[in-house]
């Protein structure tokens, strides 16, 4: 049985406090006035060629933002009436930059919150698959998975809360002024409106948490039972949950991520986010298992279990790359303006994080975990796992940032402290849940098979 030490509690609490302080600092720093932004821009233009490029891209982006205008044009509304000429171009530019600087702490917080929620949700889906398929190898890991999913309810509620508080700082379609000038968003209003967003969010979270609650309850009850009734119930609700999950996960990814670029859409986006989710979830399961194993608390976990987890890490990394590339290649090949803006923004403004992310998420785990023997060696799994987690944080970052802070991105106090907050919260809740129960689901009818599992 794992005991949550006092030191560990203080460590994770201090992460949360330190992160919060850092975040509020960056938040207070982001409140610039338009004059300050102008001096900032003037200072930047001293550095020469760099700012010119940024300016050009920024101009492109304003075009992108005003895509509604393009539709207006088709409907016979005069393009010039729309105020580009009303203020001078300089003012317009400074105002955009001001908004982007304002958005950054919100976006940074949102990325980190979503990333840790995603780990938990991925682990929950993986857990449900184990039950639905009645897998024989994994029951020794069930308590670890249940602990990780303990974070889901608070984590997902926080994501929804940040989305609502962040409002137009994250979701441009929540700004009534933008919508008023944007025919495309107006057309999507029946889906993209704040009330429906909140209701849908609560439905997703409610459904996932209900499954999590009952499945944990049955799993614990099974330990004390002398028949398999609880196990069978868990099998049934897991199968039902997976159906609910695949729909809500997809809709969640439209709502919480894809709608930051309200003009853009991709039909396989839900799958793409799912791949990210599951690979991060499995990676964290593997890392926590290795940690507990090294403390001698999970003696029954042998290298075959690690081998299987690493195989899943490898497999889902490749699956992620497959979906990433499918999305990219189809959009690149078709070259339709309304679709291709997504990648144009990312490749032109975020060239380094964009390609680094792909290498970290695909090429690195592919090469490190390809060898069968390496999948059994904890240090290799830890190495690949940390890289995968960093890569998938960057993946979420690349989904949110280009739509919210445009070219005013970076990895500074705002991003770092946001990660600290949610890392602290995640560790605290997950290890608290681990310390609550025995680490072995000893009543599971498959536990013997799982303990003797060898590959």
């Amino acid at each position, binding site marked *: 049985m794992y005991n949550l030490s006092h030191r560990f509690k203080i460590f994770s609490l201090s992460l949360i406090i330190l992160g919060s302080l850092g975040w509020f600092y960056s938040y207070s720093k982001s409140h610039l006035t338009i004059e300050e932004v102008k001096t900032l821009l003037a200072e930047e233009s001293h550095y020469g060629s760099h700012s010119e490029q940024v300016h050009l891209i920024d101009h492109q982006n304003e075009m992108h933002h005003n895509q509604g205008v393009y539709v207006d044009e088709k409907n016979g509304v005069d393009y010039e009436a729309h105020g580009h000429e009303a203020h001078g171009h300089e003012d317009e530019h400074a105002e955009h930059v001001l908004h982007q600087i304002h958005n950054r702490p919100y976006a940074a917080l949102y990325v980190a919150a979503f990333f840790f929620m995603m780990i938990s949700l991925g682990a929950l889906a993986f857990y449900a698959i184990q039950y639905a398929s009645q897998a024989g190898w994994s029951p020794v890991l069930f308590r670890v998975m249940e602990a990780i999913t303990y974070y889901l309810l608070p984590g997902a509620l926080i994501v929804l809360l940040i989305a609502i508080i962040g409002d137009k700082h994250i979701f441009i379609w929540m700004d009534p002024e933008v919508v008023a000038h944007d025919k495309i968003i107006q057309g999507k209003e029946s889906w993209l409106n704040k009330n429906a967003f909140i209701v849908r969010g609560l439905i997703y979270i409610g459904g996932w948490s209900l499954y999590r609650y009952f499945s944990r309850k049955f799993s614990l009850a099974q330990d004390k039972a002398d028949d398999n009734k609880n196990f069978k119930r868990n099998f049934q609700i897991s199968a039902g949950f997976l159906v609910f999950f695949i729909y809500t996960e997809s809709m969640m990814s439209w709502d919480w991520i894809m709608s930051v670029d309200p003009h853009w859409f991709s039909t396989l986006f839900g799958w793409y986010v799912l791949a990210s989710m599951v690979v991060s979830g499995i990676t964290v399961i593997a890392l926590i298992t290795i940690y507990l194993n090294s403390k001698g608390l999970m003696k029954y976990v042998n290298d075959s279990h690690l081998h299987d987890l690493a195989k899943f890490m490898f497999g889902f990394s490749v699956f992620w790359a497959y979906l990433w*590339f499918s999305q*990219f*290649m189809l959009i*690149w*090949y*078709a*070259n339709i303006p309304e679709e291709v803006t997504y990648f144009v923004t990312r490749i032109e403004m975020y060239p380094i994080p964009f390609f680094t992310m792909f290498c970290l998420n695909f090429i690195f785990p592919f090469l490190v975990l*390809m*060898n*069968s023997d390496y999948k059994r060696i904890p240090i290799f799994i830890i190495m690949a796992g940390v890289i995968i987690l960093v890569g998938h944080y960057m993946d979420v970052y690349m989904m949110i940032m280009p739509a919210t802070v445009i070219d005013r991105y970076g990895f500074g106090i705002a991003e770092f402290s946001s990660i600290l907050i949610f890392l602290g919260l995640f560790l605290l809740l997950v290890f608290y849940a681990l310390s609550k129960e025995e680490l072995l689901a000893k009543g599971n009818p498959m536990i013997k098979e799982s303990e003797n599992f*060898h590959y």
Partner: protein
Amino acid sequence: MGSEKIFHAFYNDDDILLSAVKKIRENHYDIEEIYTPFPVHGLDKAMGLEPTRIAIAAFIYGCIGITVATLMMNYIMIVDWPQNIGGKPSFSYMENLPAFVPIMFEMTVFHAAHLMVITFYLRSKMWPLKEAENPDPRTTDDHFLVEIHTNKPEGVLKKLLRESGAVEINEVKPKVHS
């Protein structure tokens, strides 16, 4: 090698076979070969066989595949007959790389899979029209056959085999190689 004798021991269950193999090896007899009707999980470890090196071969074949695909498409699509497809003129391989990735992937898989199968067959000394080496047709149905070469006294071995659960033990004449 005149005193070497060859024994065939038959088993009718894979679990019994596995424990028998362990027992035989513990008593320092050399198992020449085992014939089974289906793959028995863990038999290779019990026999002490070295892990397969086919994975290394597969990696090399995959590298060959991706190279072949790259060279082939570079010749076809860029060098020999560049075309303008969907507004993307093919004058540079790198600029059109995303379009070629699916083919590179497929050729990698194709080469790895096919060459691996061929390697496996050659390594197992199997090729078309080859006469089967199977010593007893029952091993293709429901019996497991362990072939042991030994020059130790046969009584001890026979006792050991019978104790380990063998249903039939035969001494066979070594094949005369002409």
